[in-house]
């Protein structure tokens, strides 16, 4: 299940929350899985080289800290499905990528979700603040 929290107060007390995707990602590095490679390709137009390096779109091999924040957040979300990650720095394209490619993850937008959920995504697969909703307007109630 994809869990989306629209504020820190909605995160269950027993869940670990990571505010800074950058340092968490650099600490645990790339896994080289199919998912990792897809994120690199679709978000950064980059290719996997090793746990701590990737080839950017110009063909230069660089350290993983040079990946975009969107990719770092997506990689954290996909590789650690039990942890809630801050998603404030994730781009609209990365948000859509997460909804299309992940089945288990925990996202937190500290001031609510800024991006629209594409119509082709079923709300049945997403929990908002711990609840299944049938209409996105219910979130504002």
């Amino acid at each position, binding site marked *: 299940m994809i869990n989306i929290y629209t504020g820190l107060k909605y995160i269950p007390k027993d869940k670990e929350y990571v505010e800074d995707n950058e340092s968490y990602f650099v600490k645990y590095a790339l896994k080289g899985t199919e998912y990792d490679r897809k994120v690199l390709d679709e978000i950064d*137009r980059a290719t996997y080289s090793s746990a701590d390096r990737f080839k950017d*779109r110009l063909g230069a091999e660089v350290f993983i800290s040079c990946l*975009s*924040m969107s*990719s770092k957040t997506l990689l954290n979300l996909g590789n650690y499905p039990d942890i809630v990650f801050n998603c404030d*720095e994730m*781009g*609209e*394209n990365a948000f859509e990528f997460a909804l299309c490619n992940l089945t288990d993850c925990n996202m937190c937008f500290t001031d609510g979700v*800024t991006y629209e959920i594409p119509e082709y995504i079923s709300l049945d697969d997403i929990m908002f603040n711990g609840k299944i909703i049938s209409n996105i307007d219910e979130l504002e109630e």
Partner: protein
Amino acid sequence: MINISMEAYGRPFSIKLKSGIYVFPTIGGTGKSYAADLLKTMQLENVLVVEYSKNKRIMENMLAEACSGKYDLVYMDRTDRYMNEDLFDDLLKISGDTTIVLDMKKRPDYTYGKMRISSIYFGKEGVDVF
């Protein structure tokens, strides 16, 4: 007005914008942070690149410098980590003479109508911010 056209890592880099506050579209992986790195490498006197630091004192000093009005271009990366209304107001005050470029995914109410959209191209031909 800022108009930089240089080589960085053997590829053209250019940024051409009038004064004001600019924000990139909310798309990830477009090269915003890469452009920040290149600008920082160039070490131009009239350009300040603000990067996020967890160290509060470093961040405060950097933001004070950003609002000083000493630079023609202030390029601020990852502003979702540190932007607030007071800081935005201070940037607005210098935006008549300074070009301010923000990497900002969240768009708080206090920014409405006060920012222009800039674009970035990052490809084999180089990096272009316009």
